[in-house]
Every structure is written in structure tokens, then in C-alpha cells.
């Protein structure tokens, strides 16, 4: 909206050769109101929010025309057809809609925007001393009302790409999912054994050394490591600079495809994984150590159970309960990915979609991705609760 408005005012990025004063201010209120309508900014923000939610009907298929001077009648074309309807405006501000040559008026609403109404929108967007032209005509707009919001299961369409937001999100998710699944498999298959070893060999050199390594990894933010890897590894030609697959991916054989995929995925995965080990490893270790020090393990050992059996049969199963609380937390990263890493490595996933939507001020994409992201976190919490209830006999929902 802001960019398009600038273009209309003659100061768009491409043609910033003349300033507003030099070029003369030629913006017509009619154009501005249409633009505001196109971007769904013509009503108060809260109303638009309710429309997005689906609690108020949204105006769709808008079409407009202005009234000639002192005329009470005008013709508006029906969108997508060649036929028109006749609009007659009443002195009290309301309007009547009549068909011309049998054109259908069913389902169409009409509103007449007086110069005062247009002035309100004008003042909202045009700052400074630029007055609205005084000879502004009345404007008639026909539209259809339709509930199309979140409650109806619709996330709207991108303002820039005209694509449904839900489709854009669905296209990006498999890419983030690919990284998420590999990441989860790696994290659990490394952290569990490492945590157990660290707990059993507490304060040995192995424990101390791996602690330093794990905390060092924890202190490295993924995006900083990403930047470092791009500059020092990818730019030297060892790995691709970015992207999910090569451009000629479809021409490759099966084996080459897999190789290409992992060649591209290696560096982003390192960044995803670097900080992820610390939390899980330390959780397994601390939890197992708590249980090893508890009375029931001591009793078991005193009874003559072998140490190996005491660890794996008695305490390990109990100490994995806290792990179940973290299961759900993975959902949002599994599907949502990381905006930073996707931006650095130019991976066209969910995170990059969010970032680009913010840059392009694409409101419906921002709202849609935010909703989905929050929803994923919610699902994650529920999954965590269920997982805890499954593994911990002390907790039941009854």
C-alpha cells in the first residue's frame, strides 16, 4: 500500500527523479480511495481485523464509479462482466441499485462515498500540507458481502502474489519439515546416549570435555555460525552457497538427487543443530543423576542388581519422563524452521516466507504465518502433555 501510494504520488523508487513539489501534486481522491480499498485499508484497523477473523463480512468484487457534477445517477460496471448497473443516490446518503438491460443486481450492495468520507481516508494516508481537491465528486462503489476469515477456515490471499496464504504455507512446509525431521532424529540419537554416559561418568575427563563442547555449542547462535560458514566454507566452494536443491535437480538421477539434497542441507543442518544438543543432553544427564542418587536405586543395588541393570531397567525409564515434556516443543521448529537460517542459506521454507512477508508488508501473509506458528506451538504443548501422561503413570487425565 505504502509503496503503491508513493508511486501514485510520483516518488516511487524507480522514478524518484522529480520531487513532489516539482511534479505538482496530481493524486486524485478517487485513486487513493480505490487503492485503500484494494489493500483493505479503507475501514478502521479493528474492523479489518474482525473481517480477517471472519466475524464481520468482507467486501469482495469491488467496482466503483464517480458521479458527474450535480448528477444523482451514475453507471457502475459489474466486475468480470460487460454489463453495468445504474446507481441512483438519494440526498440522505443512501443509494439505490437498478439493472440496465436486465443485468443482475442480486447480491450486490452499494455505498456512496461523499467528499467528507473520502476526506477521512485522504487524511489517513496523505500527510503534510496537501489538501484534497475541492471539486471531489461523490463516489459510488458496489461490492458483495462475504464472510471469508479465519473462522471460515480462510487465511486470505497474499497482496503481492495474489496467491492464497494457505497454499503458500503448504508449499513451504515440506522444506522446513525435511530439516526438522533430520534434526530431531540426530538430536535424540546423540543426546540420549551422551547424557547417559555423562551421568554415569560424572566428573570424569569425558564428562568435563563434553560439557565444554556442549556449552560452547549452546553459546553459538545458529545465525552467527551460518554467516561464518557461508563466508569461510561455502564461499570457498566446498558447499553450495544456499538454496534447497540445485537448479538442475530434476535432471539428476536418483542417487545424484539424494547427494545434491544433502550437499545443500549439510551447512544449514550444522547451524540448526549447534545449539540444540546442550539442553537435551544436560536434561538427560541431570535427570538420570537425580534418579541414580535416589533411594530406590540404592535399594536395588543393595539387593544385588547389577549396576548396568540398575541404570537401564530402573532409573533410566524414570529419568526419561522430563524428556517427554520437550517432545512437543519440537513441533514448531519441525514445521516452522528458523527464519534466520533459512534467510542466510536462502532456503525457501516457512521462515523465509515470514521474513519476506514482513519486508513486503504483506499483511495477510504476516497474519496467516503468525497464526499458523502460534497454532503449531499450541499443538506442541498438547503433544507434550499427552506424551507426559503416556510415560508417567503418576499423571492421568481421569
Amino acid at each position, binding site marked *: 500500500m505504502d509503496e503503491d501510494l508513493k508511486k501514485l504520488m510520483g516518488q516511487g523508487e524507480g522514478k524518484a527523479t522529480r520531487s513532489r513539489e516539482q511534479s505538482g501534486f496530481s493524486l486524485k481522491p478517487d485513486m487513493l480511495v480505490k487503492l485503500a480499498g484494494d489493500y483493505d485499508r479503507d475501514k478502521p484497523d479493528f474492523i479489518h481485523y474482525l473481517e480477517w477473523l471472519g466475524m464481520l463480512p468482507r467486501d469482495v468484487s469491488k467496482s466503483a464509479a464517480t458521479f458527474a457534477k450535480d448528477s444523482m445517477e451514475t453507471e457502475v460496471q459489474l466486475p468480470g462482466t460487460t454489463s453495468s448497473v445504474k446507481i441512483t443516490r438519494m440526498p440522505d446518503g443512501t443509494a439505490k441499485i437498478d439493472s440496465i438491460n436486465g443485468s443482475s443486481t442480486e447480491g450486490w450492495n452499494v455505498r456512496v462515498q461523499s467528499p467528507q468520507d473520502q476526506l477521512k481516508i485522504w487524511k489517513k494516508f496523505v500527510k503534510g500540507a496537501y489538501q484534497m481537491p475541492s471539486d471531489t465528486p461523490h463516489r459510488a462503489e458496489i461490492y458483495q458481502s462475504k464472510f471469508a476469515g479465519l473462522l471460515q477456515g480462510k487465511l486470505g490471499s497474499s497482496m503481492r502474489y495474489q496467491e492464497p496464504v494457505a497454499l503458500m504455507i503448504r508449499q513451504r512446509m515440506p522444506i522446513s519439515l525435511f530439516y526438522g525431521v533430520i534434526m530431531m532424529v540426530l538430536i535424540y540419537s546423540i543426546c540420549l546416549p551422551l547424557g547417559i554416559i555423562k551421568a554415569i561418568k560424572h566428573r570424569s575427563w569425558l564428562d568435563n570435555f563434553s560439557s565444554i563442547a556442549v556449552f560452547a555449542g549452546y553459546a553459538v547462535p545458529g545465525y552467527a555460525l551460518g*554467516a561464518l560458514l557461508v563466508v569461510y566454507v561455502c564461499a570457498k566452494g566446498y558447499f553450495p552457497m544456499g538454496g534447497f536443491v540445485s537448479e538442475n535437480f530434476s535432471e539428476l538421477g536418483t542417487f545424484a538427487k539424494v547427494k545434491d539434497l544433502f550437499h545443500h542441507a549439510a551447512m544449514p543442518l550444522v547451524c540448526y543443530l549447534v545449539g540444540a544438543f546442550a539442553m537435551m543432553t544436560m536434561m538427560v544427564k541431570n535427570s538420570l543423576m537425580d534418579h541414580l542418587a535416589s533411594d530406590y536405586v540404592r535399594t536395588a543395588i543393595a539387593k544385588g542388581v547389577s549396576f548396568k541393570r540398575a541404570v537401564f531397567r530402573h532409573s533410566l525409564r524414570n529419568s526419561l519422563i522430563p524428556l517427554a515434556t520437550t517432545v512437543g516443543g519440537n513441533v514448531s521448529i519441525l514445521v516452522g524452521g528458523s527464519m534466520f537460517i533459512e534467510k542466510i542459506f536462502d532456503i525457501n521454507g516457512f521462515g523465509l516466507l515470514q521474513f519476506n512477508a514482513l519486508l513486503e508488508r504483506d499483511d495477510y501473509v504476516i497474519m496467516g504465518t503468525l497464526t499458523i506458528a502460534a497454532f503449531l506451538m499450541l499443538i506442541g504443548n498438547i503433544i507434550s502433555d499427552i506424551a507426559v501422561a503416556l510415560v508417567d503413570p503418576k499423571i492421568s487425565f481421569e
Partner: protein
Amino acid sequence: MTFPRKIAVLLLLIAVAAGVGRFYKLELPSLRWFFSFTLTEGLQQKYPKIAPYVTPVCGWGMLAIMLLCAIALWLGGKDFEWNPMTVRRMKRFRSLSRGYRSFLLLAGLVLLTLPDHALVGRKALLVKYEGKWFFPAFVSQNYTADTFGAAEKLATNYRELKESFALENDGNFVLMPLIPWDTTFDTDELQKIELEKRDGVYYETGSQKPYQGLGTSYDPQNPKAKQREVTFRKGRLQGLGTLYNAKGDPIGKEQWKQGELVSRELGEGAEADAEKIKSDQYFALKYPPAAPSLSRGHLLGTDSRGWDLFAQLYGGLQVVCKASVLYVFLTFAIGITVGLVNGYFGGWLDLLSQRLIEVMSNIPFLFIVMIIASRIGRENVSIVVIVAVMSFFAWIGISSYKRTAALKERQRDYVAAARVLGAGVPRILFRHILPNVLSTTITLVPFSVTAVATSLTALDFIGFGLPDRYPSWGTLLADGLANLEAPWIVGSVFVALVTLLLLITFVGEAIREAFDPKKFTTYS
């Protein structure tokens, strides 16, 4: 002297020094920060009446609060004794060598940020000119160049002044800070790198490859006056050369081939000027980003804007320190208060605010901060705004700890006793319950600091953070990623960031270990 009284004296000294510095219009390192708050340009235009009062009100207000705190600490800290439990914890913390050493290093780093523009800055610490002494860095008055003998009334460039004083050798001298570059908006546009002539072939100093590119020679008497500009191919002069007179106007053109002059075309009456051009000492002009070099004072090189990297890292560390203090203060103040109140009262209030907290904690934090920052507009974002937005979402974690603690503590006898004695709610919450639940909070502080440093850098990195008037590690990181031929940018920022975060993590881990040691049993 007891601990609170020591703190009181420290606060008093800081407040008095800052106040005196302001009164005499001095620019004291770090103490000037209290009077550095202004409205952004947009707000200044909107509220022209308030704008001039913001700086003094903020500054003197903070000093007054510090004075009050100092007085309160002095009066209340007479019979202060450390809780034996706390003493034991501190002792245990000191015994954890990795964490304690990290703590000392970290404290050293923070202390290092305090000298401020006495360590990193473009203004000279000391100028001696014709027997008079000037201290440009420490006064708010700006000395124009004519103060030091220049013809024009321009802003003084102390780095150039130092060079020209050194050339003149008249007993005048300039003492620059260790890093003679400002943290922001201090561009070193191009660098002159001397070309070495070996067997008729020119090399960059220290390089083994013959020089390719544009070279410039200067008048040996006046190193600023360009004389000849010529291209080099494989270390020899080749192609078009341009001659200049002492005023800097072009006076003629030359053709070179394999280091030999082929032809020369001179403008009218330029023969005399052209005769003077003899120097075969050439310089390569480098545009930023410039690699690390000692001769220009760029210890870590510059970024693509020509701003010194070390200065920016230093400024970025200062920003992180300030942001951390503000963030920890805000987050913990809100989190502790809300948590204690919820836990203490329980009931409807608790039920409602818990639902609100659940909603807020399911919102992706960084994305929301980015949305808000993009709505405010990057130029209007200040450190206070961004920290406030971050704290607005971050207090939740703290409050849930405090709520649980308060739920437990309110059943204890000492709370009932306090209530029977007639203590009010705030007194019970903050004098009785809070000291008993504070210890777990302290273990959260290092992780809060890590969070603010990471988020702030991440936001700047992705372009939704602080504007350019703040030096920032994130902006540098993005700049390094956009300039792959300058790997020193990303390298230095990465080392700085990871060192800081690693130190904080080690300290945090040690504090946690000291406050809540893990019991363990070994079976052998």
C-alpha cells in the same frame, strides 16, 4: 563498611560526578550517558514543546533517583549482614574455577567499556598547540580547525591534525585515543597502500603478486597533492595515465606500455607543471571494506561503509551492556511483581492472568518483535523501545517461577505472623516473601543476558533492529555476509559474540551449580 553502604558510596560518587560533569559542560566517559536521551526526530517534530526538556529531565531525574537510592542504602544498610546461606553459595561459586574465571573475565570486559570515548573515539584526548593545552574529547565545546592554525572554520579532524603536527615538528602534539575512530558515522573512505618497486615491477607492500589496478603518485613535498593516476597491469604501468597540477586540475594525458612512456599530450601552458612530476612512488587506493592494517589504525579492518570494525565491536558491546541492564531490570521487575501478586492472591486474578500468560507465551516472540519494529519504523526504534518490547514478552518466564514460589510461601508461618503483626500486602510481598524466593531468580539472570544479547544481534542482523546511529554486531554480521570478499568482518564479529555468550553461559552454569548443587552418587 557494610556491603549496602559501599554500594551507596559508589552510587553517590557516580551521581555527583555525572552532575558536576553536566554542570561544567564536560563530556565524561560513560557518565555522559545519563544526559544522552533524546526524542527521535519524528517525535521531536510532533512535540516541539517537550523536546528540549527530555534530556535534562531524564538525566537529572536518574541522578536524583540514584541519590535517593544511595541515601536509602546508607540508612538501611547499617546492620547489614550476609545471609550465611548466601555466603556459602558465594564461596561455592568461587570454588568453581571455570565459572569464576569466566565471571572475572566478563567483569573485566564490562569495566573495559567504561572508558568509552577515552579509549575509542575520533576526538583527541589532548592537544598541545602553541603552548596551550586543549582536551577536545572531554568538553562539549567543539573546537573548529582554525583554533589549531587552519585557515577555515571547519570541524577539526584530529587524526589529520596529528599527522600534520608530526610533519611540522614545532613542539605541538596530539594525543589520540587508542582506537582513533568513532563507533558510528566515522567513514574512512579510501586507504592509501604503498606500492613497492622490485626489479622494475610494482608489488603491494608485503605481497608476492605483481600489482594490478589503479595507482596514484603524489608530490613528495605535499603528500595530499595527486600528480599522476595510472593503471598497472602485472606490476607495470600500462594504458592511460592522467597528470594533475598542484591545484588538482587535470593537465594532460599519457599512454604507457610495459612500464614505458609511449606518448604524452599536455594542455596549454602545462609544461612547467608536468616537469615537476617525477615521483615514482605509487600508492594503491583501496575502497572499503578495508582489511586489517596497523598503519591506518584499523586493527580489525573496516566494514563496507568504511567504519572501523574494532570501534564498532566496542560500541556494540556497550550497547549490549546497556540493553542487558535495562532488560534485566524491566523483565525482573515486571515478572517478580506479577508472579508474587498472582501467587499471593490466587483465585480469579490468578486464573485470568494465567490464561493471558498462556496466550502470550504461545506467540512466536522474535516474529512479534519484528512486526512491531517494522510498524514503528526502523528510524524511530531506540534501545529503550526495543528492550521494552522484548521485556513485554519475556517477563512471563520469570513470573511463573515467582508465582509457584509465592503459592508455596504464603502458607508458611512467617507470612501469617507478618500478617498478624499488621503488615500490608506490599510489605509482606517484598520484605518477607521476596528475600526467601530471590535465590532461584538470580540463577535466571545470566540466561536473560544471553537472551537479550542474542535477540538484539539477531534483530539487527535481519534488519528489524536498532537504526544506524547505534553500533551493532548484528548489522556488521549482515554486512559481512553481503561482502564475501571481506571475511574479516564476519570473523571478528563471530569471535566477539561467541566469546561473550560463552563467558555468560559458563557463569550462568556455575551460578546454577552454586545455588542448586546436584546430588550424585557413584556406584563402583
